[in-house]
């Protein structure tokens, strides 16, 4: 049993946990973080090995259900059209993310006011803007200032290359008069804060052995550890415990050998994201909180939002050198981002232009989605696809729906016997109509760019990366789980800093906003230290 009491205990060392740890480190408090995964040795990442592409569907796959690592927990997503993707390690899912790093738009925080749907956030873009800026410097964001789709913002590093593929598509967007801009990317395009520059290896989705991609194991954690934060890996928290006063007083966790241990704490910060956080709270039942900790609103686990994705792939006559360059970061279009009353859906979507595929993935994708035959016709079919494919994903705004939820599965458990989450999710009519619109526009821009045929996957099943909304923030304890600075309405020393507190999802990758929120919450905690638990 641990004898020490942490001043602050952070659960989860991913995108948000790392940012909070770094921010709180300068208080000199005793900050401890428990992470169920381990450090990933860059030498073990697939990109340095010839079989790197096939490992993308093996030990570095997106799904915790098929990856088979001990630190993963299974997720019952069998009844969802979108499968959950995540990674458990120091750095969390930033180990495998594309590092596409857009901000939310100012309008994203005011969807009720502007469009009459969902709810407004209790904070606005201006509140988060300074923390977006800090995060840009800490993560090392590359891009190009001047994007007319955003208020002015600082971008510390030059953009990732367009390459032949990006230039081809950019000209297509220009022909249609549509917005596009080089992606904001959490990728060091030159040497930055001890990180080596991107070498266009194209292995981002299996981790970056170069260290150019901003996973938090190479950004926030090194300075946080230097400033005294304690990070304990292979420690899986089972439940948060509460004292007689109704305050959280610590956690029970299993160490790497499966031994049950306890960590006491004065303040607890949950950073397990949109699936892990409600799972932990629902597993933390007690006489005082029979429906799960911090769940008097009944909203823990409710309003799960993904970003429903579609993938539109064009096949071109000429080689595009698409295997070169950051996989998920090239250009983005926000031509259809905002609500347009002439359309049959509310809110909007972004297009993200991806790079092409390597040989293995071309064959696997071709088999699954493009009718690539086996047998004598295979080689001709493969030559038709390889290095001729330009991929584009649609990332559409999901709106909160209480029926979309995370609950505890009655049977499924992780390796330590902790009940696993079950996902109930259906695609809304609004999302279905939005995806149909986006697929048609995606085909249009690919064709005007020169694609001779296109292939569509909609909705994209293995695309449940973005996990949001399951412990939403707000000022009313009846309609939200945490307040406007991330503190639980029910438990005054319990904070949540991850994507679960999102009120709405916007139509961009959430990591930048998750981290900006985490930094904002940590900053508020520091400012209120003397009266942190007051009403």
């Amino acid at each position: 049993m641990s004898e020490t009491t942490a001043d602050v205990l952070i659960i989860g060392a991913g995108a948000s946990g790392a940012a909070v740890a770094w921010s709180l480190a300068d208080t000199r408090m005793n900050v401890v973080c428990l992470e169920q995964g381990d450090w990933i040795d860059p030498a073990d990442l697939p990109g340095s090995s010839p079989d790197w592409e096939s490992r993308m569907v093996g030990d570095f796959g997106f799904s915790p259900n098929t990856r088979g690592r001990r630190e993963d927990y299974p997720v019952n997503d069998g009844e969802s059209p979108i499968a959950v993707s995540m990674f458990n390690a120091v750095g969390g899912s930033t180990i495998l993310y594309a590092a596409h790093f857009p901000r939310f738009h100012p309008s994203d925080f005011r969807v009720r006011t502007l469009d009459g749907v969902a709810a407004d956030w209790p904070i606005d873009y201006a509140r988060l803007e300074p923390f977006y800026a800090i995060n840009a410097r800490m993560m090392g964001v590359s891009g190009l200032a001047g994007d007319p789709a955003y208020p002015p913002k600082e971008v510390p590093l030059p953009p990732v290359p367009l390459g032949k593929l990006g230039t081809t598509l950019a000209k297509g967007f220009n022909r249609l008069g549509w917005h596009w801009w080089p992606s904001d990317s959490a990728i060091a395009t030159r040497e930055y804060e001890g990180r080596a520059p991107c070498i266009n290896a194209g292995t981002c989705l299996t981790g970056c052995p170069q260290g150019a991609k901003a996973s938090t194991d190479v950004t926030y954690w090194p300075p946080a550890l230097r400033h005294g934060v304690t990070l304990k890996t292979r420690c899986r928290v089972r439940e948060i415990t509460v004292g007689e006063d109704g305050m959280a007083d610590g956690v029970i966790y299993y160490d790497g050998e499966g031994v049950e241990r306890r960590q006491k704490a004065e303040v607890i910060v949950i950073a397990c994201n949109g699936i892990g956080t409600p799972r932990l709270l629902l597993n933390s039942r007690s006489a005082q909180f029979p429906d799960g900790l911090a769940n008097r609103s009944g909203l823990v686990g409710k309003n799960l939002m993904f970003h429903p994705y579609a993938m539109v792939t064009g096949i071109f006559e000429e080689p595009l050198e698409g295997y070169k360059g950051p996989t998920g970061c090239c250009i983005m279009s926000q031509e259809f981002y905002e609500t347009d009353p002439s359309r049959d859906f509310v809110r909007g979507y972004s297009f993200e232009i991806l790079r092409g595929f390597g040989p293995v993935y071309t064959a696997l994708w071709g088999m699954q989605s493009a009718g690539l035959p086996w047998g004598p016709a295979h080689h001709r079919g493969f030559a038709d696809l390889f290095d001729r494919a330009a991929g584009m994903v649609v990332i559409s705004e999901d709106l909160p729906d209480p029926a979309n939820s995370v609950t505890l599965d009655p049977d499924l458990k992780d390796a330590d016997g902790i009940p696993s989450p079950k996902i109930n999710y259906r695609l809304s009519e609004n999302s279905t109509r939005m995806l149909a619109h986006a697929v048609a526009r995606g085909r249009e821009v690919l064709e005007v760019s020169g694609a001779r045929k296109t292939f569509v996957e909609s909705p994209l099943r293995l695309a449940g990366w973005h996990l949001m909304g399951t412990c939403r923030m707000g000022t009313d304890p009846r309609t939200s789980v945490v307040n406007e600075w991330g503190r639980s309405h029910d438990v005054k020393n319990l904070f949540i800093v991850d994507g679960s507190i999102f009120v709405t999802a916007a139509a961009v990758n959430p990591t930048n906003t998750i981290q900006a929120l985490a930094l904002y919450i940590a900053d508020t905690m520091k400012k209120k230290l003397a009266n942190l638990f007051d009403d």
Partner: protein
Amino acid sequence: MTDDGFTADEERVLRTLLDDILPPSDDGRLPGAGTIGLAAHIVRTVRKTPMLRPVVEYGLGALADLAAKRSPGGWPALSKQERSAVLEDFTATDQFFLPAFLFLLYSGYYQHPRVVEALGLEARAPHPKGFAMEADDWTVLEPVRKRGKTYRDPS
């Protein structure tokens, strides 16, 4: 299948099956899958992904059984056309074997140095050498800049 690899019966099916599914290219640049030692890759991958093992075992066994019904000599005695017919009959009723087997086959074939070089690429891991990319011409952004602000200001 054993932990050491395929049984003799499975090996007999596998050798020709690999070439039937992925024969050499017409111009001879790309080798047939049966000639570049992919059986070892399949064994390694199945060992790392145990859920594939029963699918592969069942599929190879079923193909051998179907072949035996056609000819007393079984799979090795069938002509290429007969083997293709057996494979097509089997995969028409079984939805699991072929996708799993193609995954194993393609993932091994398209990372094999002979194949990668035949595709015009260097047979190496992407890291640490990476890939050079030409400098971009950002004048392509001018039409977007000219449009001016497009975001909605909620205030």
